[in-house]
C-alpha cells in the first residue's frame, strides 16, 4: 500500500508517509485531475488544433506583443517580467492538449526572454534560457548563437567556440555563426598570447 489519502470534498490526493518519488507523481496526478475536472467533457478530447484553447493563445499573444514593445523602448526588466508571466501561463495549459502547439507557443516566449536578458546584461539568465532552447529545439542554429554569445559575454570563450561550431554543423553557411566563430577564435588567440 502506498502512503497517500484521498480527500472526498476537494477531490485531491495527499501524501501521508515517506516514499521516494511519490510526491512528484501525486502532484502531477492532482494537476491532471484538476484539469480534467474543470473540463466539461466526460473524457479529454484527443489532441488537435480544434481542441487547443484559443482564448489562452490569444492572451499569450497579447502578452508577447506588449513585451516586444517594451523591449523596443528599452524597458527590459518589464519585458522580462511579462515574458515570465506569459511562459507561466502557457506552462499551466492542460497536459492533455497538443504537445507540438504547446511547445511552439512556449519557445516563442523563451526565445524573446533570452534576448531580453541578453540586452539587459543578465548573461546567466540569457545562457539559461538559451540552454533550454537548445534542449527543446536542438536543430535550430540560432539557439547556438544565443548560448554561445551568452557564454562569450561571461568570458567562457572555449565553450562559446564549441557552441558556434555545433551551430555551424546544422547550417554550415550561416553568416552570423561564422562571424561569431571568427571573433571568438581571435579572442582565444589573444588570450593565449598568439596574437
Amino acid at each position: 500500500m502506498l502512503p497517500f489519502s484521498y480527500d472526498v470534498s476537494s477531490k485531491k490526493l495527499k501524501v501521508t508517509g515517506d516514499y521516494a518519488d511519490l510526491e512528484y507523481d501525486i502532484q502531477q496526478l492532482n494537476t491532471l485531475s484538476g484539469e480534467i475536472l474543470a473540463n466539461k467533457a466526460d473524457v479529454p478530447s484527443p489532441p488537435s488544433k480544434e481542441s487547443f484553447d484559443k482564448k489562452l493563445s490569444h492572451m499569450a499573444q497579447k502578452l508577447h506583443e506588449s513585451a516586444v514593445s517594451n523591449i523596443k523602448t528599452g524597458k527590459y526588466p518589464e519585458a522580462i517580467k511579462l515574458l515570465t508571466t506569459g511562459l507561466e501561463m502557457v506552462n499551466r495549459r492542460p497536459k492533455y492538449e497538443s504537445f507540438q502547439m504547446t511547445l511552439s507557443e512556449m519557445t516563442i516566449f523563451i526565445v524573446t526572454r533570452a534576448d531580453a536578458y541578453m540586452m539587459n546584461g543578465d548573461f546567466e539568465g540569457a545562457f539559461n534560457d538559451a540552454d533550454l532552447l537548445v534542449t527543446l529545439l536542438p536543430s535550430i542554429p540560432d539557439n547556438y548563437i544565443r548560448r554561445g554569445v551568452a557564454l562569450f559575454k561571461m568570458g567562457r570563450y572555449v565553450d562559446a567556440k564549441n557552441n558556434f561550431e555545433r551551430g555551424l554543423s546544422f547550417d554550415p553557411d550561416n553568416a552570423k555563426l561564422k562571424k561569431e566563430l571568427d571573433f571568438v577564435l581571435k579572442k582565444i588567440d589573444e588570450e593565449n598570447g598568439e596574437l
Partner: protein
Amino acid sequence: MAEEEPIIEDMPLQKISVFTPIIYVSIVIGALILFSIFYRRKRIAKLQVMKPFFPPDLPKEIYLQLKDQDPKPDEKVLKAALIRRGAEAIRRLLKLRENNQYITLLYQKGSIGDEFFDRFKLALKIQELEIQELVQEAETYKQGWAPTFMPVCQEVTLNEALRRRVNAIEDRKEQLAKEWELYQEIEASITN
C-alpha cells in the same frame, strides 16, 4: 534361379494385453506433461528473480489503489489516474523502443550478455501487455474511448516532460549565479 522362399515365416505369436499400448502411451504423455510442468516452473522462477528493467511503476500502483478504495473516488479522478498510468506506460515504451536497435546490435556483437538481453525483452513484453490492459481498462469507463485514449496519454507524457525541463531552469539559474560569483572571485584573485 531358385524359387523365392516366402520371407515371412511363421512366427510364434505372443499374446499381449489390450492395456499394454494404453499404458505405454500414458507413460509417454505423462512424462512429457511432467517435463513441461517442471520446465515452466523453472522458467517462471527464473523470470521472477530477474532484476526489473524499470523502478516500480508508481502511477499504476496509485491507480490500482485508488480504484479499490472505499469510498470510491470521483470518476474523473480515476480517469486522470488511468491517463497518468498510460502516460507512464508510453514513456517506458518510448525509452525501450529508442534503445531497441542499439541493444540488439550490441547483443549481436556480443557486447552485452544474455541476461541483460533477456531482461530487456521481458521489459518490452511487459510494456506491450500493459498497453493492452490499459486499452481494455479505458473501454470500461466509456465505450469507444480506447482509440483516443492512447494519443491523449502520449500528449500527457510529452507535456509532462516539457514542464519538467521548463520548471527546472528556475533552480538552475540560482546555481549558475553562485558559480558565476565564484568564477569572478577566482578571476579577481588571479589578477590581483
